[in-house]
């Protein structure tokens, strides 16, 4: 359907009025970050990808699991509905992958409390960034998987909903049906491939290359920082610890397999003591280990390439494995 006006901004105003917590791209200096906003003006849609990913809305960097004194005093759970507005196809797909991780098998109640009340409004990509490679991972950047999808084509705003929650949200808007020509335009838009990088994944080769000296070579300049994993929309590792001896909080925070302490065991043994082992772990966790959940856990957003201070490039590393 077609909307006359700025759909994303109007959607934010409606969501806020309906009592949602709204996460949207907001401008900081020359770039954008996904963060919680309290008015439509705080959002800015002149962007392709925000620096951080939309996962902050469902998997925050810190969260309190338990408040304790002599005994458990409070278990805070998300009570409000959450909306992510302006998510791209890659980040939208990543949320589906986080769902598999946190909701299949062992169900994470904290994640669930946010996820079951989540509304996602995605925007189709007109162009790709320099390190985008989503298409080679089977994602169509022009047809994101979300509750509501917005595409801006030649000045027209197309809006569609595939899910029940999306359809019922759209009922509050004044939309008109597309005419024949517009339907055609949209169809063409969705089937056009964007120009972008491609990754070649050869799982059999990955399996055989686990002990290859190649990984040492790739990792030689790696700094073991948290950039790649913290910015990654699908990375789900966390740490839990208590703050406060007699009274306090049990906190969950993001953690990264690139930090040496991530796998340090209490016996002092560290199965991934060397940085090349840790970097290899990240690559295998994206393209091999997670296959048991049925998917690659990379959506091709390219953030880990853009912001790696050492210039390590997952597309090259995986495509050229030997």
């Amino acid at each position: 359907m077609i909307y006359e006006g700025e759909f994303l901004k109007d959607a934010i105003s409606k969501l806020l009025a309906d009592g949602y917590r709204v996460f949207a791209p907001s401008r900081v200096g020359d770039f954008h970050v996904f963060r919680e906003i309290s008015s439509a003006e705080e959002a800015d849609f002149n962007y392709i990808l925000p620096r951080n990913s939309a996962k902050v809305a469902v998997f925050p960097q810190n969260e309190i699991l338990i408040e304790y004194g002599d005994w458990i005093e409070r278990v805070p759970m998300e009570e409000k509905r959450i909306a992510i507005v302006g998510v791209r196809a890659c980040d939208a797909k990543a949320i589906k992958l986080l769902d598999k991780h946190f909701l299949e098998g062992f169900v994470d109640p904290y994640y669930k409390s946010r996820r079951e009340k989540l509304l996602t409004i995605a925007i189709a990509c007109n162009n790709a960034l320099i390190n985008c490679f989503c298409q080679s991972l089977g994602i169509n950047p022009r047809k994101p998987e979300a509750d509501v999808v917005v595409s801006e084509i030649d000045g027209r705003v197309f809006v569609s909903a595939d899910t029940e929650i999306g359809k019922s949200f759209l009922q509050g808007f004044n939309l008109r049906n597309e005419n024949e020509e517009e339907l055609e335009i949209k169809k063409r838009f969705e089937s056009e491939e964007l120009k972008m990088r491609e990754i070649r994944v050869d799982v059999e080769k990955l399996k055989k290359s686990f002990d290859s000296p190649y990984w040492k070579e790739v990792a030689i300049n790696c700094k073991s920082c948290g950039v790649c994993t913290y910015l990654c929309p699908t990375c789900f590792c966390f740490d839990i610890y208590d703050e406060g001896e007699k009274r306090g909080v049990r906190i969950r925070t993001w953690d990264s397999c690139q930090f040496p302490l991530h796998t340090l065991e209490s016996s002092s043994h560290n199965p991934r003591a060397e940085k090349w082992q840790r970097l290899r772990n990240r690559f295998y966790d994206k393209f091999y280990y997670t296959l048991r959940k049925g998917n690659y856990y990379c959506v091709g957003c390219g953030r880990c390439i853009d912001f790696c201070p050492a210039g390590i490039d997952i597309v090259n590393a995986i495509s050229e494995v030997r």
Partner: protein
Amino acid sequence: MNEIEKIKDALKSSNAEKIVAFVRKESEPREVLKVLSPNEVDKISFSPLSLNNPAKLLMQINGKVAVVAKGCDSMAIRQLIKEGKLKRENLFIVGISCKGVVDYRKLAKFVNLSEVNDVELNGNDLVLKLKNGEKRIPFLEVVDENCLYCGHPTPVIYDVLIGEPREGKRDFSDIEQFERLSREERWNYWISQFERCIRCHACRSVCPLCYCEECMVDPSNLAVSPMSTPEEKASYPRILGKTVNARDNTIYHLLRVLHHAGRCVGCGECERACPMELPLRMLERKLEKVVVEIFGYDLNEDIPFFSKLDIVGD
């Protein structure tokens, strides 16, 4: 002979077992540091996009290594020699008299980077060789701001020097300007910056001087051994958790930066690495100003700052 040929010649003359230098990526003009063997010398590149500091990489390599170093890179190498982390006799330093490097994120605003094949400085312009055609941008619009305050564009230690020596100057004018703001304004400014930090620790991890295996900003200590009792493990000092908020991030940055007193060489790696674009150099430069003005220490002195404090203390 142009600059790059001179660098290659110098590297070839070094008899080193390994070479640490820049190689350009294929998909974008970004240059990354690589460890090469001598027969790969023709792969190297050097340009205003040779941003990173190779000093940290050198600490991983045994044996004789040849390295391409700009002014600030050489400062870091000299500092690591001073601190006993590198051996002068193992290094062959090809020093480059530096005219400044590009801020890659600024450059991205001017041009689609995947169209750029090569960049070069020509007078006051950065000349971009594009897939089709050429584009000139005034260098000042894309230069890394850090380079504007560079005190040592000419390497302070080298075996071969390439380019004419250039004067640097110590300039704290921006810091002085900031100092004139009220305490409250300065506090609010920093809190609004620290709030944004995601504590990826990249600023710490890329710093050539942050080589400690146990870093005090890490949430627990590596010094657990099979002999440690549960009580010891539970009570290991933890200065900071992994919680990310303006308060904890402030502590993180103050601790980190204080450890660089009289050591920070001004290469700008911290700020360049930061995905959230925090003005980290400003913190380090304020510290440098204090070290110079209050303690009268100069980085060019042979003795490390902390050792000098000990002597003065006696």
